[in-house]
Every structure is written in structure tokens, then in C-alpha cells.
């Protein structure tokens, strides 16, 4: 009779995590950020038809990195979840949080119980409405879910890209500013990314009921060559900052004793 080798659980989890991380690191990265008119999603993706970014519901978008077949299966499952829920209840009852939780449970389940973990990381973004803020849920390969405030970076080189991105990120910036910063962060100092190597989409309120819109390569080329226009009103993201500034103006702080 053969006895199975004993492997310590710590070791097993570590091996699986390493395996998943390696798989994810082989793919290209993705940046999602909040701008003054909504949410921007930028992925490095040379394919025009195998999408990393997709529409889930009226105000919800999906983005995935890693193995295409694995995250695409979850993308379709997400659309099914959202459409079924919206059909059974009401369109406004569909939210990103419950979907992100389902993804997290599924990924966690696979990570602990299956031989092979999924080599993917996914992002569920929801455009805020009626005073609710925009939401970015980042779900990692082992089911860890994080609720990001202003931006999220997914993929192998996430830490470096996030550092570069954080350095240039401004509260309430315009779409063009955010787009350029995303590109620079994804590309790094040694190379340039062409519109043909990118997949870009936005969630904005200007699109009617379905907030999701892809920016095609032609539009990207135009946006990247035109000079950046400073947004006239920084409304959305900087709302709290503006309120703080107004409060400060109404109630001036006492003179600095050092003056």
C-alpha cells in the first residue's frame, strides 16, 4: 500500500500562490482609475477581439488579467448573474458589490479545493449614482477582495505600475489626463505604448442607460495627440476636497505663529 506524501498546508498554499502569481505575471497589466466624468479602464492588449475589459450591466464593467479562458468564463458568469438579477428584480437592484463577493467566493473555493488555482485577477467597477461614490473591487487569484478608492492596478508588475501611477495621479483629473498617466504607468520609462496595443473603455454618465463605452484606436490616437484640456469644473472626485476648501475659506485658520 502506498501512503500519500504529507505536505504541510502552509507549503501547499504557498506553492499554489506561487503558481498563480507566475501565471499572472506572464500576462500584461491593466489600470483602472476614477476621473472627473466616471471610470477609465486601460489594458495593454494587442488583440482587437479577445477583450480583457467588458460590459457587465448598465453601470458595471469587468476587467481581467491572466489566463484569457479563465477570466472570460467569469466574465460571462458575471453577465449572467447581473442579467438574471435585473430580470427577476429591477435594474437598480444589480450592484457590483454582490458580484465581486461572488467572484471572491468562487476564486477562494477554487484556490483551496482544486488542484490548480485560477491564474487570474479581476476587477469589478461600478459607476456611482445619486451621490454614491464610484467603486472599484479588485479580486485576487485566491479570493482576496479589496475595495480601491481611486485606482487599481492588476497584473504581474502591479506594484511598480501602481507606484508610478500614484505619483502622477491627481484628484478630479480629466479623461485625457488620466489616460496619459495610465499609459505612462503601464509603459514604464523605457518604452512607449501605441493605441494599437491598448484596450480602453470608460463608464460615464453621458452614454445614457448603458454607461459602458469602448474608445477605439482612432479615438485614442486623437486623444493622445491633442493637447490636454484642463477640466473646467472638477466636480466628481474632488467634491470632498472642494467642500473642505470652501469650509476653510469660510472659517479661516488662525495665523501661523511662525509668520
Amino acid at each position: 500500500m502506498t501512503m500519500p506524501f504529507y505536505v504541510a498546508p502552509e507549503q501547499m498554499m504557498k506553492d499554489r500562490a506561487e503558481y498563480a502569481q507566475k501565471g499572472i505575471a506572464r500576462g500584461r497589466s491593466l489600470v483602472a482609475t476614477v476621473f472627473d466624468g466616471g471610470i477609465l479602464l486601460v489594458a495593454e492588449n494587442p488583440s482587437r477581439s479577445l477583450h480583457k475589459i467588458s460590459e457587465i450591466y448598465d453601470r458595471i464593467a469587468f476587467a481581467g488579467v491572466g489566463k484569457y479562458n479563465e477570466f472570460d468564463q467569469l466574465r460571462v458568469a458575471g453577465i449572467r448573474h447581473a442579467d438574471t438579477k435585473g430580470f427577476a428584480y429591477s435594474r437598480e437592484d444589480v450592484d457590483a458589490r454582490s458580484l465581486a463577493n461572488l467572484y471572491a467566493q468562487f476564486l477562494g473555493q477554487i484556490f483551496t479545493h482544486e488542484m490548480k488555482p485560477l491564474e487570474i485577477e479581476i476587477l469589478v467597477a461600478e459607476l456611482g449614482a445619486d451621490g454614491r461614490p464610484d467603486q472599484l473591487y479588485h479580486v485576487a487569484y485566491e479570493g482576496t477582495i479589496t475595495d480601491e478608492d481611486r485606482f487599481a492596478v492588476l497584473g504581474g508588475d502591479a506594484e511598480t505600475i501602481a507606484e508610478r501611477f500614484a505619483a502622477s495621479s491627481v484628484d478630479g483629473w480629466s479623461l485625457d489626463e488620466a489616460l496619459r498617466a495610465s499609459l505612462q504607468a503601464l509603459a514604464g520609462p523605457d518604452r512607449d505604448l501605441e493605441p494599437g496595443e491598448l484596450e480602453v473603455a470608460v463608464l460615464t454618465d453621458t452614454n445614457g442607460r448603458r454607461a459602458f463605452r469602448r474608445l477605439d484606436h482612432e479615438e485614442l490616437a486623437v486623444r493622445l495627440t491633442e493637447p490636454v484640456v484642463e477640466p473646467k469644473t472638477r466636480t466628481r472626485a474632488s467634491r470632498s476636497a472642494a467642500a473642505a476648501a470652501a469650509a476653510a475659506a469660510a472659517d479661516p485658520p488662525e495665523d501661523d505663529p511662525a509668520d
Partner: protein
Amino acid sequence: MGLFLFSPGDDPGPDFGALLRRQDPGPSPLLAGSPDPLTVRHGTTVAALRYLDGVIMAGDRRATEGNTIAHRAMEKVFPADCHSAVAIAGAAGPAIEMVKLFQTQLEHYEKVEGVALSLEGKANQLGQMVREHLPMAMQGLVVVPLFAGFDLRREEGRIFTYDVTGGHYEEADHAATGSGGRDARTTIKLGWQPAMSRDAAIDLVVKALYNAADEDSATGGPDIIRGIYPVVATVTADGYERVEEVEVAERFGRMVEQGFGGGGSR
């Protein structure tokens, strides 16, 4: 509601109806052999016609329950997706449910597949839904939709009519269905011309619904006291657009000024 994952051999693909059936096999054919047909709400007259930029679709606002008026401001014309419209006649409950399923199905397909269905594909889908409804239709709950849209590949408006068995037929220029469909059709047939302008086409369809209401008790005419006018929508290369009710009211007012609607009994 969970995450719906299937093995490749068992996957419903982009078919939302098939997905729903996986979770719930559907209502059993209720009331089998019930002697009295149910008295349920019925929607009545809808019409569509082709014009220069695409198609126009319109419907009256009355719903009836037997010989009583059940609703005065019912909507019977809906956007199916951004480039097509669906109008319904028949039992209102199942008809509205069918429209909701149809809208969800078209959007579901588009999101899963990344491209929208062709107009022919959409018309076919609706036909399948009508056919699935046949057992209910046999018990008196007949639903007959009218489908029209702008075919982006052929760059023209197209109209499809249906029968209870789910058969769908493409109409050349115009169509009308429902209890007052016959009367509406006659008006449209007499006034229709190739490549009509938007103004002329809206006037014609409003006249057609007026004449249908004049002859058919189940069709509602313009209600000036309550300000209820037919729903009119256009579908062009730019998409579905509902004609403002104010505009329909103005057009109707102008037509009356020009002497339309005479010929009452002495």
C-alpha cells in the same frame, strides 16, 4: 442568485432564455382545458411603416378587459435595443413579459458575444418566443408582436409581423396588427408613398390610429382632456427615438384644424 458556470458541452451560450430555463423549467401549462377564457387585459392597435430614414412605429394607449377600459395610458411600443423596436397587441401581461425577456435577451447576447445580433437574428429570436408562448395562446392569451428596426448592414428600415405560431414574415412597406389593425392598415395603405419624410410619416401613422379608434371600440383615440396621445417612435441609423408626446399632440391639433376627422352620423 449565484454565478452560473457550466461545462462546455452544457453551456447555454448567449441565450438568456435557455439560462432561465436551467434554473426554472418554466410554468406548467396552467388551466388546461379551462372552459371559460380568462378575462385579462388586452392591448389593441399597433402599426409600423417604412419612411425615408428608417421605420416609424406607433401604438394607441388603451387596454381593455372584456368590454371595460382597463388602462388609458398603456405603452405598447418599446425599444428592443438601440436599433430596433417592438410593439405588442394581445394579452397585456404575457406580452409585456415577452418584451422584457426579449430586451434582456438582445442585450445579453450583445454583452456575452461582444457584437449585436443581426436584425434578421433579432426577428427570429422574437419568433421563437412567440412560438414558446403557443400553449398559453391556445387558452386565449394570444400575444402578437410587431417588430421593426434599422438594419445597419443593409442600411434600411425593415418590418416583421408575427402569427401566434411564431411564424414571422417580413413586410415590404407597412404593417398593423391588433383589434384595430385592419382599419389602421387601410389608412396607411391609402396614404403611403415610397421615401416619405418624417413629418408625413408621423402624420400618416397618427391618422391611421385615429381611424382605427374611430371604428374599433377597443382602440383608444387621442384623449385631449387627459392629454394622452399615441406612442410614436422612430428607428433610424442614429437609433431608437421616441417622438415627444407634445409633438404628437401638436400634429394632431393641426390635422383637426385642417378638417381631419369629420364624417360623423347625423
